[in-house]
């Protein structure tokens, strides 16, 4: 596309970045765009911490013997990897960065409904994050991010309460972000921006926010119960006192399964913006994609016990949860088919965001279809708690959610930073991430069906698993390079990148109708929407001002 044409701007216009300078103008800002950047910096920090743990895990598994780190260290590594990645990277990633930046812009609002609560949510996240860092530096936790009782409540000596408190605090950040989005989307849409004209990114965030609002309090309660059980031995989960360890699993997964949809729905929203733009088409089946987001959010609350098919649950309960798990697969399938159909008779460009969207489609499809294996009761018994599960959820949460996140970062980077990133490097990075990801996680499906259990730091009892583990570790290093590259060239582009035009992709949507980067209050005057979402036909119609430029 015509990214190369940079409109020369002799005098830099005032925007949200250059309006004020100084630390306090950032730390006390109520501008959703600045808060989005605060989040961007913080989650990137935690992403690389979590990634560092992942690298150590993969290095340990290079050889069957437990030789790089000790057993307890390894157990803390995978625990902290999970906790950091889930609670401090994935859950806030797209909503708190891209969502924060884009929700008001996309619906034509000046800011979120509660700008100060928005800032509060970032501070809560930081307080939670600092607590988590303190917890990690002073000993860490070794229960796995799942905190299963009675191990977490009665047996481990690690810092359960502190880690739990960190997640408890960060959880409120998530709740407040969700609350802010729900109110904003209901109350602050520009005139003419009806529900059926909303970008599907907004629908996805609306569904996500519902889960954040309704699900997160349950994990908060669960954490309080674990802390209370540890401190006071109430007998909630301890069978010796009449408690039930399965109760913990029900409570934990009641939040933690929907939490997966907090991670993947926004990513689906990003992809739904990218694909129409680079196909120059309106999206196929708008209302089906919109309602499938809501359906996923609703059904997502009804499938939690599919994590517990061998936990000692009644067979009849297992049947119901297996059936409902297939029900939640249908709206996901609908989305994949609609994205594919959107390409039909399009005019497809292969810029980096689109490459990430293709990567998302491929990896999410594999992740989703392997979910069918896990929902099949008979197979679940064999593969649950093995590397099959590890591979499956990484395909969804890393292959899906992170690919979408990176795609979105590239797509909206010109709007966020006012600069263009280097396209060639970006395409290369997309390719490296895709190859590295598959090399890391595909062998783990095979390992899982072979029977290698999760959370083993030493597999010298079964050296036959080594070849696949070596492949996986090799892939992880490639993947690491793929993740470092965008950080480097994004930073580079902030200083050396070409200034971005207001709408470098000729994309539809209100966020592209304001300057890049936008001014503090987003629009010079309140926009009035008279068109449907994804009106690429009108955008591409021959126009005296916008002559198509050949490359």
């Amino acid at each position, binding site marked *: 596309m015509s990214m190369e044409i940079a409109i020369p701007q002799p005098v830099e216009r005032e925007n949200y970045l250059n309006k004020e300078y100084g630390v306090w103008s950032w730390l006390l800002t109520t501008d959703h765009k600045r808060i989005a950047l605060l989040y961007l910096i913080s989650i990137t920090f935690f992403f690389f911490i979590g990634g560092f743990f992942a690298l150590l895990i993969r290095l340990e598994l290079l050889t069957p013997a437990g030789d790089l780190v000790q057993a307890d260290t390894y157990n803390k590594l995978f625990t902290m990897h999970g906790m950091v990645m889930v609670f401090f990277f994935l859950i806030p990633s797209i909503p708190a960065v891209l969502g924060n930046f884009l929700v008001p812009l996309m619906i034509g609002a000046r800011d979120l409904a509660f700008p100060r609560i928005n800032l509060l949510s970032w501070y809560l996240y930081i307080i939670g994050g600092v607590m988590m860092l303190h917890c990690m530096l002073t000993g860490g936790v070794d229960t796995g991010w799942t905190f299963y009782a009675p191990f977490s409540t009665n047996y481990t000596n690690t810092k359960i309460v502190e880690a739990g408190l960190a997640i408890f605090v960060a959880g409120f950040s998530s709740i407040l972000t969700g609350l802010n989005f729900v109110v904003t989307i209901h109350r602050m849409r520009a005139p003419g921006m009806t529900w059926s004209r909303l970008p599907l990114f907004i629908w996805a965030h609306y569904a996500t926010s519902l889960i954040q609002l309704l699900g997160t309090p349950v994990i908060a309660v669960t954490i309080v119960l674990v802390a209370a059980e540890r401190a006071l031995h109430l007998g909630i989960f301890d069978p010796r006192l009449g408690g039930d360890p399965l109760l913990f699993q029900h409570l934990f997964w009641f939040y933690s399964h929907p939490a997966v949809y907090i991670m993947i729905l926004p990513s689906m929203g990003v992809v739904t913006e990218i694909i129409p733009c680079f196909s120059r088409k309106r999206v*196929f089946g708008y209302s089906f994609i919109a309602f499938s987001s809501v359906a996923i959010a609703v059904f997502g609350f009804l499938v939690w016990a599919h994590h517990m098919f061998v936990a000692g649950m009644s067979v009849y309960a297992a049947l119901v949860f297996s059936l409902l798990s297939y029900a939640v697969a249908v709206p996901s399938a*609908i989305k994949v088919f609609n994205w594919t159909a959107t390409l039909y008779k399009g005019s497809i460009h292969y810029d980096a965001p689109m490459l990430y969207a293709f990567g998302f489609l491929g990896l999410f499809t594999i992740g989703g279809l392997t979910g069918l294996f896990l929902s099949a009761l*008979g197979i679940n018994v064999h593969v649950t708690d093995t590397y099959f599960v590890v591979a499956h959820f990484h395909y969804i949460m890393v292959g899906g959610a992170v690919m979408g996140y990176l795609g979105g970062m590239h797509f909206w980077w010109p709007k966020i930073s006012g600069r263009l990133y280097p396209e060639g490097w970006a395409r290369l990075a997309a390719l490296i991430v895709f190859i590295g990801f598959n090399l890391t996680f595909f062998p783990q499906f095979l390992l899982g*069906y072979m*029977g290698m259990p999760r959370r*083993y730091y030493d597999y010298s009892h*079964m050296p036959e698993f080594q070849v696949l583990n070596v492949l996986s570790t090799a892939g992880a290093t490639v993947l690491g390079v793929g993740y470092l590259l965008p950080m480097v060239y994004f930073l580079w582009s902030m200083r050396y990148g070409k200034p971005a035009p207001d709408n470098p992709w000729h994309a539809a949507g209100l966020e592209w109708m304001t300057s890049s980067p936008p001014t503090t209050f987003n629009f010079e005057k309140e926009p009035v929407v008279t068109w449907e979402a994804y009106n690429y036909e009108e955008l*591409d119609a021959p126009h005296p001002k916008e002559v198509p430029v050949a490359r």
Partner: protein
Amino acid sequence: MLNNFPLWPQQASTMAAHVDALYIFLLIVCGMMTLLVFSFLIYFAARYRYRRGVPAEQIEGSTPLEITWSVIPFLIFMVIFGWGAVVYFQERTPPTDATEVYVVAKQWMWKVEHAEGQREINELHVPVGRDVKLIMTSQDVIHSFYIPAFRIKQDVLPGRYTVEWFRATKPGVYHLFCAEYCGTQHSGMVGDIVVQEPAQYEAWINGGPSGPLSATGEKIFAELGCSTCHRTDTQGRGPNLQNVFGKPVQLEDGRTVTADENYLRECILDPGAKRVKGFQPIMPTFQGLVTEEQVNALVAYIKSISASKPAESVKTTASTISPATEKVQAHGSQVQ
């Protein structure tokens, strides 16, 4: 054939073939779905790539198409669901005449007790071609008894029995893993399942020093003074335990439960919870006074003095509880 494929786990139980058949079916179905989606993606991506002067054709969507690609996958999903459920029921329903083996898990080892009295640690000897039912509990945290070559796995919980069963089909030594993360040496909680020809197995099982498990249980029963109240006539202050296993029991609060392993266990460790109708709450709790192995021996003894095992008892599905106990739990406060 599959056993020679180095990326495929060994098939050594009757269940393994069933699970593999479903897995292969899923590989084919999902492989076809992947191929379908990817072919369309690649074809569209190539066919409709940007060409100057060729604008995109705007398409609103198509409700018939949406219905088609919702309903057809759903029907396929239901086939997978049904097949998966059938396999699961087989996995969770131990045959009535299975050989029973007691397993006690602790951080970080598996302790195994055979009915004949043989004890093992991190090893389990079983004969080829015989149904074996594992009655398992944990002394501390949750563990999971996983034999990949048999395609079976069941979490082992503290405070109750869970059950799994298998029939080995091929002599050999197979991996036993703990599949539920249980602390520092989780990855050291591995062992061997030794499947032997029946003759070899008979020699092994009868080579042990101790008597049958139920005899140990009888001794403990006398030592702990259980027999003073649980007499073999109707005069005892506690219920007569002869022929009680597997039978329905009327409780003081009006409910009826089946006297399965979990019920017997609960009565020993928490006698007040489900008191038999017509008896006073005088039995002390044995929580903390008996080890898991002693509870197992007591349960084995009580089972041994029940002449015949009625059909209901074995419905103790491989999950924790029989339908009867489940009914109680639905009434009670315990959350399942």
